[in-house]
Structure formats: structure tokens, C-alpha cells
């Protein structure tokens, strides 16, 4: 009996001490700001500390393709809303749910939230979105023990389910590499964390994208070839080939299931509140393909749009931005593109919310 008691106390003691170190919040504050966890923390920290004057707040989310910068529209004479952004490169809809939950716990802060998508048809890719292991690293600081069934359960692979569950239970196992890096030079880390906390709002909100553009590339849609001018980046042709001509992925319905689940979870957060969910399609790229994917009437976003409080924007609203001079690569807008896109989106949100 004594032995069992000692072993049980050891097990609980370990989980307790571990959680005291890694789940009480202080370690998340000193995570490397350049890591995926650090970036999410940094964006959420900035949004928590952003001065929100007036009730008309709009929050944008997304990944690196979301080239929206609030400075182009905030305090603009024709726009009544104030915009913020928590669009973190590499983040996914699963992460977005936990980020929204963290940033708006009372669901009262925003008039609208902006969610970008690549297309309205849930076009399948080769990646199994539900099994994206790095999602755990992005939102580890936001996850709680009570999230274990849902977050870990949302993975398909049993080993990833187990890894996610263990990761939430013992966050040190997720922070391991970061912790070792922290020990390598503690002062340097702490100084950098303080610098990021002090300055990163400006880095994000005043960021000016690159001026490089992909004008001059020639795409042969039939032969699946790309001709890149000699003064362009050496890897540009490969980037375009990978992006525009991937081997066709089988239609499994996995992507629709994944997106439906997490968009609905975001919807659940704001169900019955004043916050509207605005979904729009990002400019697809500098050279949009001539053939559109088959229309999916029951795609995640089209189904979601049938619910009250959800606005599904005109699919082609940003088509005018799909020009090579506004892109730095096959997916990302350049500085000029980001400026145009931000202005267009800001004005358009004003229109949509005024209806």
C-alpha cells in the first residue's frame, strides 16, 4: 500500500511539477519568438495589448498568404472600422480556432472576424491537414488539458493522437528543443524576448513587403512548363511547377471534413454573438489557372455560409489582384500587392458590414 502510494505520488508529483514549469504560463512568455509557438504568442500578445478605441473592431486571421496590413486602412477617412491582425505564417484553421478562443474569451471584442481561404471548393491536396503535427507546436501555449479529447482526437494517425495528448498533458515534451536552446544562452533569449515584446507590434504593423515581382514568367498551361527570365530567382521555376502542376490528389473528402470541422468550431465560438464571420477567397496567384476546379456545392465554406452571421464574399472579388507585378512568388503578394489588397479588403469589409 505504501509502495503504491509512493509511486502514485511520484506520478502525480511529476505531472504537477511539469505543469508548474510549462503550463502555468511563464514559460510560454520566454519561448523563442521566432519559433511557431513564439510567433503565435507574439501576435496574440500584440493583439491583447493593441489599443482598441471604439466598438468597431475587425480582426483578421490567416497564414502567410494573408497579406493584409491594417495600417493601410486604419484611420482611413472612408473606413469606420479599426482592424487588427493575428495572421501567423504557417498557421491553419485548427490553430485559428484556438487563437480566436484565446484572443476573444468573452466573444464581445470584434464586430467581425476575417477568414481567408484558398478556394471555395475544398480542393484536395496531398497533405493530410488533420495530421499536421506542427499544429501542436503553434498553439501549445493556448491548449488546456480539457482540449485533449478534441485537439488530440482531431488527428487521424493514432501515434499523432497520442503525441498530441501527451504534448498537452506534459508541455515540456513539446517545448523540449526550445528549452535546450534557452539553456544554451539564457540571457540572449531573455533579451530577445523583451525586444520582441517591445518592438514587434511595429515590425508587424509597419512591415513593408518585398518589392520583388514575378513579371515576365511564361506559363504553358498545356505543356506544364514555365519559362523564367534569367534575372529571376533560381528556384522560381520549381516553385511555380510545384504550385501550379502538382500531381492530382485523390478526392477523399478529407479536406472538406477537416475544414468543415474547424470552421464550424470557430462559428460555435461566435454563435449568437454580434461578431460576424467574413470568409473570402485570397488572390490565387500571379498566374491563375485557366481552368477552375469543379464546383463543390457542399464545400465547407458554402455550407457554413448558410448559417446566420456568416458572410461568404464574392469568390471573384480579388481577381483583379491576380497579376504578376503584385506577387513575389506563386503564392505570396509582394509589398505593392499587400498594399492594394489591404486597402481593397478594408473598404470591402466596410461595405459588407454596412449592408
Amino acid at each position: 500500500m505504501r509502495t503504491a502510494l509512493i509511486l502514485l505520488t511520484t506520478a502525480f508529483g511529476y505531472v504537477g511539477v511539469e505543469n508548474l514549469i510549462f503550463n502555468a504560463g511563464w514559460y510560454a512568455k520566454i519561448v523563442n519568438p521566432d519559433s511557431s509557438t513564439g510567433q503565435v504568442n507574439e501576435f496574440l500578445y500584440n493583439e491583447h495589448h493593441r489599443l482598441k478605441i471604439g466598438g468597431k473592431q475587425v480582426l483578421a486571421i490567416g497564414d502567410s498568404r494573408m497579406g493584409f496590413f491594417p495600417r493601410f486602412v486604419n484611420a482611413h477617412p472612408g473606413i469606420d472600422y479599426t482592424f487588427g491582425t493575428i495572421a501567423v505564417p504557417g498557421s491553419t484553421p485548427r490553430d485559428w480556432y484556438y487563437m480566436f478562443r484565446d484572443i476573444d474569451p468573452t466573444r464581445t471584442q470584434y464586430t467581425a472576424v476575417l477568414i481567408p481561404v484558398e478556394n471555395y471548393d475544398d480542393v484536395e491536396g496531398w497533405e493530410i491537414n488533420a495530421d499536421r503535427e506542427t499544429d501542436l507546436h503553434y498553439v501549445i501555449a493556448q491548449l488546456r488539458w480539457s482540449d485533449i479529447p478534441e485537439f488530440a482526437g482531431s488527428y487521424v494517425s493514432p501515434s499523432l493522437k497520442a503525441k498530441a495528448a501527451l504534448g498537452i498533458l506534459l508541455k515540456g515534451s513539446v517545448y523540449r528543443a526550445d528549452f535546450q536552446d534557452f539553456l544554451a544562452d539564457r540571457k540572449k533569449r531573455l533579451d530577445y524576448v523583451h525586444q520582441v515584446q517591445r518592438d514587434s507590434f511595429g515590425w508587424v504593423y509597419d512591415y513593408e513587403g518585398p518589392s520583388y515581382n514575378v513579371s515576365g514568367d511564361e506559363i504553358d498551361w498545356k505543356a506544364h512548363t514555365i519559362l523564367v527570365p534569367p534575372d529571376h530567382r533560381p528556384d522560381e521555376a520549381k516553385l511555380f511547377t510545384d504550385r501550379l502542376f502538382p500531381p492530382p490528389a485523390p478526392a477523399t473528402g478529407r479536406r472538406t471534413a477537416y475544414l468543415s470541422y474547424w470552421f464550424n468550431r470557430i462559428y460555435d465560438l461566435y454563435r449568437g454573438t454580434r461578431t460576424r464571420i467574413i470568409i473570402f477567397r485570397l488572390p490565387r496567384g500571379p498566374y491563375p489557372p485557366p481552368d477552375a476546379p469543379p464546383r463543390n456545392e457542399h464545400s465547407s465554406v458554402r455550407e457554413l455560409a448558410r448559417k446566420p452571421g456568416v458572410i461568404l464574399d464574392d469568390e471573384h472579388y480579388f481577381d483583379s489582384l491576380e497579376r504578376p507585378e503584385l506577387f513575389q512568388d506563386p503564392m505570396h503578394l509582394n509589398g505593392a500587392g499587400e498594399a492594394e489588397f489591404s486597402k481593397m479588403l478594408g473598404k470591402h469589409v466596410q461595405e459588407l458590414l454596412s449592408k
Partner: protein
Amino acid sequence: MLFSTIPFFEFLAVVLALYYAAPRVARRPILLAASYFFYMSWNAKFIVLLLTLTAIDYTAALWIARSEGHRRKLFLIVGLSGNLSFLGFFKYYNFLADNIALLLQRPPHSFALAIILPLGISFHTFQSMSYIIDVYRGQQKPIRNPLDYALFIAFFPQLVAGPIVRAREFFGDLYNWKRPVGEEVLRGVMLIGVGLAKKLAFADQFALVADSYFSNPAAHAGALAAWKGVGAFSLQIFFDFSGYSDMAIGMALLLGFHFPQNFARPYLAFSITDFWHRWHMTLSRWLRDYLYIPLGGNRHGTLNTYRNLMLTMLLGGLWHGASWNFVAWGGYHGALLAIERMLGRKMFEDKPPMWLYPFRAALTTVLVTIGWVFFRASDFTHSRYIISQMFSFAHHMPNLAVPVWLIWLAVFSVMVAIVEERWDFFNRLARGPAIAFIAVMIATMLMVELFGVIDKQIPFVYFQF
């Protein structure tokens, strides 16, 4: 199934649950089945080899016990030959074939065969040999129940890399089995935890540095990098093997078996003689009892003693692996032992005064570390190059990167070893205050979690032997 992986712990949990839930009569068959399952999870086909060796030794021992005079010796020779021929073929055939090819000036590997080294063959062969020798000497009664004998050979905690257990130790526990209680359970759990931390948090971390050095020593020229790389391997092999041994002893304890200690803080040894009393103790014991003493030990004059020491260490080296590097490693240690004996036995067997101890321990560790070059380098040419770098007294760039916290980990481990040496801390932990046990175990688990190399599976060094 590596000891340090989740599938192994799942396996262990199932075995423990079945073992203690089953009626007493079913426990040995359960352990034997689990051991065979464990062995077959590596390569199912080789179970035939294990069964054959088991059958040979089981039968040989019975025949030895029944016979007298020359027939008794004949059966001993038959038994030993059986073991050695399997070991010789699987472990040494290609070594021999390559050397013959070299002598005949034929291309390398002309006579080589694609042979897979069966898991743990060096260990279970030595264990079998000690059993039939003990029966021959009348120190051990032959085991009548073939399943009991099969379990002695295949018992999964020590099948792969020891400790090399004597028959009387194993069967003493098997036939007088008592359910482990209280202190033993805590000690078993502690040994598994500490062993896991030694392997994942220490050995595997040092392995990353050692591997990056030994994979291409020329890329890290200079004395500093050489000492870092070799020093990292020195720590890796200790933590790896002693971690494995701790886990094996801990698991055995949870199953009601008491295995002998295999390591006793070898890097605190004050001489090479002392080192071999602390390093891989069950192998040292085996070599002493079944090789050194039968060769004559120190009973037939100084020269014969040196010869016996040298032969024992050379064969001990060769036991580790079939290459001239291992022979050189054994020879190096044999020579050091002979030198110590030459300089005065008392001086190297008796503990030096306190003020001298740190210097002697440091010198011993340096000498042992130099020896590890032969153990780890891919061939003789690399060994020579690395040793020449260690004493080049030149510092060249690029250097070998070692994280600062890894150096602290090494310092921490030395401090723990000193505390353990002075106060026998870990041995007393299980019977000490519960709070101390709990605190140490929590710290151990945190070490595994935060410093463990989890994403890469680095096999135990001694699994290759």
C-alpha cells in the same frame, strides 16, 4: 524493440500484468513466451538458433552430470564447441575471411558472406558456457526442466546485452521466487527510470556529438575537437551501457529476480585495475573465472601473469567485436594492467590518499578515454589519425560544436557519481524517506522529458555485440 521506446514499455506493462495475474504455475511459461516474443520482434528466424543453442547446452549439461572421467570432459568440449562454433561463424567468420583475403592478396571481402549477427549472441553464449563449465566443475546442478533452462538463456531483461548472470544466481531466484515488495519494487522502478534517463538524456545527447565527430574526424581537425569527440563517446558508452544495465536489473527486480551490479562509477576509478572492477563487472567476473584463472592467473610467475592478463584482455577485446580495433583496445588495456602490476600491485589496488585521488582518477579516465578511440573509430587508420589529433597540440577550425548545457550535464553527472560513491545514494534511496525517492524520480523524469533524444532512435551501443 529497444528498451527506451514506447512499444517496449507497452510490452513490459503487458508482461508484468500477465505475470502477476497468472497462477504461479503459469508464470515461467509466460516469461519464456514473452522472452521469445521479444527476441523474435527483432528477427523471428533466429529463434531457431536460440533454440538450438539452448538444446545443445541443456543436453550437454545433463550428459556432463551423468558422466565421469574423460566422457565428462568430452561432453564439456562438445558443449563448448557447439557454442563457440555458432559464435565463431556468426561473429568472426567475416573477420577471418577478410584477413585471409588480405594475406592471399585477394580483393577485400573475397570470401565474405552476408551474415547477420544474431541479437545478443555474445552475451547468451557466455552465459551458456559458464553454465556448462559450472556443471562440469560441480558448482552447479544440471537443470532438469528444459523450460527453466530456456528461460535462463532467453530471459528478456538480459538477453540482449547482459548483465551476464550466473546459473546459480538465476536459478536461486527462480526456484525460491518471492514476490517483490516495497523496497524492491521502488528500487526496480527507480533503476528503470534512472536507466532511461542515462540512455535518453545523457548517452544519446553525447552520441550526437560523438557521431558528428567520428563520422568525419578530418572535418574537425585539431586537439580540442578530438578530445571533445572522444570525450563525448566516453560519456556516451558509459551512460548507454550502464543505463541499459540499470533498466535490465530494474525490470528483473520487478519480476522477482536479483541481477548483479554491472557498473560502479567506473570514471571514478583510481587505476585501470580499479576501472575493471567497476566497468562491465559481470564480464570482468566472467573473464576472470572462466579465462584468466584457468589460464593460470597469477599463480605461475610474473611473466605468465602478464601473458595471462594480456591474453584475457585481448580475447575480451575480441569478444566485443570482430575487428583489429577491438583487439587493439583489449591489448591496450592488457598492457596498462600489466604496467600497473609491474609498478606495484598494491599501489593500484589500494585506494590512494584523499589528496591524490582526484589526480589518479583523472589520469585513469584520460587513459580509458584514449582507449575508446579504438572502440569507436571505424578502422585502424581512423584510430591512428584521431589519437594523433588528440596529441597534436594544435587547435584548428572548424571546431566541434558542443552545447553549453551539455557540458553542464556532464558536470552534473560527475557530481552525482561522487555523491553516489561517497554515500551510496541510489542504493539507499528506495529504503530512505519517501520524499527523497519522489523528488529524485520527478527530477529523473524531467531529465528524460527535457533532455531526452526522443525523435531519433539511437540504438544501444552494446546491442551490436
